[in-house]
């Protein structure tokens, strides 16, 4: 399968934060959810893909092109949606269209105005006065009007109401119907990822904790509950984010490690939210700081 995006061995440090050996790839034709706590490095990774941040080492290729040397061509073919508007707030959508037109080789005015209409965005109002949902849709309208083959969204759904979020999922589902396209979608709203993403990458403290098919992740982890004294010694070490409370404990466990556990311990499927929470708890436990990546 051909990759539309490929990151290998990305390193970057500034202050007390560092991206450490970040590697993952997105095959053409699919949607990848990009999740992790605030400060885990998602935005820095996205800025690196777009050559908006200088990296220390590593290689990023988009459409098989180099993110640094071919950045102009990559930007022509990539649409971006950020959590805040990157367009001039004092202009109307009509004026913005005029401004963007000369920049893109494949700009389609009719497509842009068609999108404005279908998204119910006025073309004569200053875009700074748009609501958050309207701003997100405006950025999508721009992305869809220059034949972007890859759309990168950095927390587009934060602060959006459920209706606007649902509309975004609709738009992305429609966009990916063309199998030559791809979507990288960073968000805190894991339900959105669980619904439409094919792949997921979890970033934690600047490292890739998991990358792969969402189905694989969902099948790989379970939440284990029960009484602390029932946990076999050999399993204790394998628990992630172990948390004891008055009447028992909870922890994340790999489904591979479930075999042979006593019946007194209960387990249930872990969702993406569970996994993120237990990874964070594991940090606080500081029992073993090494990566638990599968």
């Amino acid at each position: 399968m051909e990759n539309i995006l490929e990151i290998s061995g990305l390193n970057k440090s500034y202050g007390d934060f560092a991206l450490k050996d970040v590697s993952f790839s997105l095959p053409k034709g699919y949607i990848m959810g990009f999740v992790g706590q605030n400060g885990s490095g998602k935005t820095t990774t996205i800025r690196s893909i777009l050559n908006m941040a200088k990296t220390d080492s590593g290689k990023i290729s988009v459409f098989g092109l180099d993110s640094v040397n071919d950045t102009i061509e990559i930007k022509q073919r990539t649409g971006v949606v950020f959590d805040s508007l990157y367009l001039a707030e004092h202009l109307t959508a009509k004026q913005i269209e005029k401004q963007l037109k000369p920049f893109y080789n494949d700009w389609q005015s009719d497509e842009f105005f068609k999108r404005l209409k279908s998204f119910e965005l006025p073309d004569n109002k200053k875009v700074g006065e748009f609501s958050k949902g309207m701003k997100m849709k405006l950025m999508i309208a721009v992305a869809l009007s220059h034949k972007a083959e890859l759309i990168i969204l950095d927390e587009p759904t934060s602060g959006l109401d459920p209706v606007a979020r649902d509309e975004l999922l609709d738009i992305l589902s429609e966009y990916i119907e063309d199998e030559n396209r791809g979507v990288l979608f960073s968000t805190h709203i894991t339900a959105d990822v669980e619904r439409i993403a094919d792949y997921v990458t979890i970033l934690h403290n600047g490292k890739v904790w998991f990358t792969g098919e969402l189905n694989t992740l969902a099948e790989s982890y379970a939440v284990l509950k029960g009484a602390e004294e029932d946990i076999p010694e050999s399993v204790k070490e394998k628990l992630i984010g172990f948390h004891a409370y008055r009447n028992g404990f909870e922890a994340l466990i790999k489904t591979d490690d479930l075999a042979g556990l006593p019946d007194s311990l209960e387990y249930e499927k872990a969702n993406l939210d569970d996994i993120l929470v237990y990874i964070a708890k594991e940090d606080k436990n500081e029992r073993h700081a090494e990566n638990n990546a599968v």
Partner: protein
Amino acid sequence: MKIIIKNKSELPIYEQIEEQMKTQILDGTIKEDEQLPSIRQLARDLKISVITTTRAYNDLAEEGFIISVAGKGYFVSPRNNELLKERMLFEMEEGLEKAVTSGRNAGLSDVEIIEALKKFMEG
């Protein structure tokens, strides 16, 4: 074709699609030789991932319910499809085995079990 996805269901989404499509193929709601939506269309319609619909279609094709025609898409298998028949026979035998085991566990004689089956078939 009608597919309803329950997000809160215990069944994974691809299995929900498989179950509902099988039922509709078997009861004739989806006709034989009927063209199905493409993998990507279905993903878009149901607002779910492409990998999920791919898995559902692959499983259904493997079990003989649908066939993939290169360059054209997916179609419901013809009724007389051998693979589908075999599959149905297998499922029938599985069901019978379960019924017989349960009957015997309940202390019924073989004659009584056969009587029960006859009654069941007469409705």
